[in-house]
Structures are given as C-alpha cells and as structure tokens.
C-alpha cells in the first residue's frame, strides 16, 4: 500500500498501481458493507470516482480515503442519494460459498448473512473491526465518531449477532445438518 505522500501532483498510473494492488480487498470490504457483489462494486466505483476527482492533488493515504468513503456511502450518503439498491440478503448472492458439511462452517456463513440484518452503522463497525482489523480508535477516526460510540455500536452488533446466531443454532439443531427437520 502506498504510503502517505505530499507530492503536489499524482499521476493516474500511480492510482492504477494502487488499485491493482488493493482493489480486490476494497471490493471485499464494500461487499461486506452492502451485502451484494453488485452493490459493492457500485459502491467501490463511486468511491474511486471521488478519489479520482481529487487525485492529482491528493495528499494522503488512498486506501484509508477509499475505506472511509465506502463506509460513509454505505451508512449514509449512498442511501440518501437514492442510489441505494435494494438490500440483498446474502442468501441470494452468487458470492455465497457452498456449504461445508459441518455445522460450524455453516454458522460462519450464517453469521455473515446475519450481519446484514444489523443497522448499517453497526455493520460498518463490525466490518471495520473484524474484517479490516482496525482498532476502536482507528474505526472511530474513520467513521468520524467517538471511540465510545464505536465500542457501543460494536457491542450491540455482536450482541444482536449472538441472539440471531442462537436462533439460527436452535433452528439448525431442529432441522439437522442438511436443513431437513430431524
């Protein structure tokens, strides 16, 4: 990842190099924030467009900028601008992996699906915390809120996930490993 720099004029080739290296990861973040590949790509495209607009004079960390833009778009602006596509459940996306035979792996998949049932802010916090592996303070700085807010949002999100996971586990126990009622 390119480090911060203070050059007054950055070339597009530099941005291309950066995206070659980091676009996949950022897309994964976007998809986790939005829940579908299509919306995630759209989100990333919009974020890149915003970066491109100021790229020549951009003086900062492009990955941090894109990540922040993705989060802002996902939690607020994107939806408000009317471009928010119908939220898709991960169950319906092509990105979902084939189920493993074990219940534990299924639960991992299910947790990601359940993530989408959380409010956008809580989801963003969990994605940043557990996918991007940012600290609470880094997450707070990125989202532009207090560290306490991040902690409480993360805590509420995890608690909600736990509830949903328990429901899911109970249902899975009733239905058996293949989804059929035992």
């Amino acid at each position: 990842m390119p480090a911060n720099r203070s050059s007054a004029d950055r070339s597009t080739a530099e941005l291309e190099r950066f995206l070659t290296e980091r676009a996949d990861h950022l897309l994964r973040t976007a998809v986790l924030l939005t829940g579908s590949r299509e919306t995630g790509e759209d989100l990333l495209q919009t974020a890149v467009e915003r970066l491109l607009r100021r790229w020549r004079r951009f003086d900062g960390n492009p990955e941090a900028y894109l990540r922040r833009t993705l989060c802002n778009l996902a939690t607020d602006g994107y939806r408000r601008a009317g471009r928010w596509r119908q939220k898709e459940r991960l169950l319906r996306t092509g990105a979902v992996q084939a189920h493993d035979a074990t219940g534990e792996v299924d639960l991992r998949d299910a947790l990601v699906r359940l993530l989408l049932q959380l409010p956008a802010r809580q989801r963003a916090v969990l994605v940043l915390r557990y996918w991007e592996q940012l600290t609470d303070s880094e997450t707070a700085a990125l989202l532009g809120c207090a560290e306490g807010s991040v902690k409480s949002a993360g805590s509420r999100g995890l608690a909600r996930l736990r509830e949903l996971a328990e429901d899911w586990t109970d249902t899975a126990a009733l239905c058996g490993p293949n989804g059929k009622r035992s």
Partner: protein
Amino acid sequence: MNSDLEDMLREGMERFTADLRAPAGLIRHAAQRRRRRLALRSVTGAATALTAGAVALVAVILPGAPAAPATGIDATAYVVQHVSSALTAAEPGDIAQIAVTRSVTTGGKTVTTTAQEWSYGDQWRSVTNSSAGQPLYDEGYSAAGVYTLVSYLTRTWARERGIGHPTAPAAIGLLLLRPGIKAWLPGLFRLRPAHPNGAVLVPRLCLPVVSASPLLFQPGLPALGFSAGLQAAAGFSAPSLPAARALRNAIACGILADAGRQSVGGIETIKLKSRPNSPISETIWVTPHNYLPVRVVITSSASSDGTPVVRQTADIAWLQPTAQNLAKLSVPIPAGYRRVSLIKVLLGIAKRTGPRLAGNLPLRLLYGKPW
C-alpha cells in the same frame, strides 16, 4: 463465546468474499462517470436559466405516436433538433458539411434558424445563426476531445476537456415515453430508455420505429456504428452499420419507401419517404450509387392543440479532407473575446436568445460516452 463468535465472524467474512475480484477498468469507468456527471451538471445549470416559456417551446408533443406493442414500449417518438454531425457515419473518409434550416411554428408564428455543421471522425463543429443570419454561437469538439464554445452574443468563449463527444446527434433524440407524457425536449435525450425502470428495448430486427432518421443519423461521432441503445432499438448486432446500409435496412423494414428519382442541386438522387402515418414525416434523397444522403427533410406532425411543428432541412455535401476543408472543423476564437467558464457562456446564450431559440442551445454537452 464472545471470542468464538468474533473468530467465526471473521472467518465467515473471509470465506464469503474469498472469490471476489475487482472488475477491470475501475479508473476508466470512474472517469466516464465523472465526465457524464460534469456534462449533466453543465446542462442542468444552463437549463435552470431557461424560462418556463423556453421550456414550453422546446417541449413538443407528438400526437399519435404509435405504440410498439411488440416490444412493450408504451410509445415511441423521435425528436428533431439539429441535423448534426452524425452523418460522419456514412463516409469516414470524407467531411460531412451540413447546412441546416430549422423552423419551429407555434400558433401560426414561425421562428427559423440556420446552422452550418461539419463532421469528420472525432471532430465536429457547428455554427448556429439567428433568423437574420447572424452567428449566435460556434461550438465544436477537437480530435483530442476538447469542447470549445464561442458566444458571439456575449463575446465570450470557453473550452473544456473531457466532457465527451456527443454520442447521440443533436438532430435526433429518442424518448420512450410513459403513457400520457407525450412530450419531449429536443436534444436532451439519448437513444435509450428514458426511465431505468421503464420500457426496455428488445433487440429485434425491424422494430416498429416511427422514423428512419435514427438509422441515418449516427449517434456517435468517433464510431461508424450505432450507439448501443440504437443498436438495441434497431436490433442490429453488427458493431457498425454505415448510413448507406442503414438506409437499405430501413427500406427493407418498410420504414422508408422508394419514391422515385429526383434531382437535388443538380445531383440525380433516389427519393426515400417515410410511411404516410408516421408521426414524423421524413424525406431523404440519396445518391443511387452509394446511398449517401444529400438532403434530409424532417417534419413533425401538425396538431390542433398548439403543439409546435418542427421542420428541418439538411443539405449535405461531402468534402475531401484537404487542409482547407479540415480547417473548417476548428472553432476560431475571435480577437478580444473573453475566456470564461463554460456555464457562463451557456447562461449568457440562454439569457440572450430567450425562449425563441431555446431549442438551439448548445446542449450537446449532455451527450457523454455510451452508458
């Protein structure tokens, strides 16, 4: 449990997105989107300067535009504004020089403007004149994609890069209309469905188009073929379709009919006419040996409800790309003219011309790259 849950969530995220790869051309697409946004912003700004009267004038209702049940299209209407650059499609090796006379009749009063246009490959230029023949403004794209606009009204000029070439001709726009909204703004629409959730163009040969003009007026300067939207509308899968072949297809589809031979400016031509019940009447004279158009006359239907009737004549000459002829594609900046922002020039034109010439505003900025 907390730690387990967090680990499983992390692993779930990893698994869920493991196969995702970012699409190629992120920057290119971002740049295209930005160009479109800028163009739209420019035009939106200009449009706000128009009075309600101006909008009323440029909005034309095409009564009786037939529905296209075969495709589920509610109604289809083709829009006539300038006869534009698009004729480049016919012969890429030659420069199309087009003399346009456009008259709009409303309530018995007719306003006539003229324009001289040139088109050659990526380059295009148009000089619009008042009814009295005075130049109002001069606009054009260079081969490098730089748009220049000179206003003789305000003695100002602007130049902007990266707006994108017009991909639909100012001459023709297509709006797929929702029921009951039979109005359009000339030049403001691209050859594609007006509403994302509205009618969908289904590729099919010989769709019930109401006019052959879109087949003739190539909506993309650099290319020889149609825009993606038009290809879909016309059902042609070929990447390019020169005007001559498009005309033959239009005849084969019954959109145009051979109406005999006629001399136009001393040139022996074949006269092609649209169907009698077409909401837009068009007559096209082509040379017999290569089907290149030399004159196009388009008239919207008259109606009793005060709808403006637009009649437009384009006389086309095909010039060799000599240095002298190529020079006609450049927009000259007169000495003493002040350079200002593009939006200022647009607003200045809108203020000076008022509603009478609103339909002739240089709204080509709206035409970005293909969507």
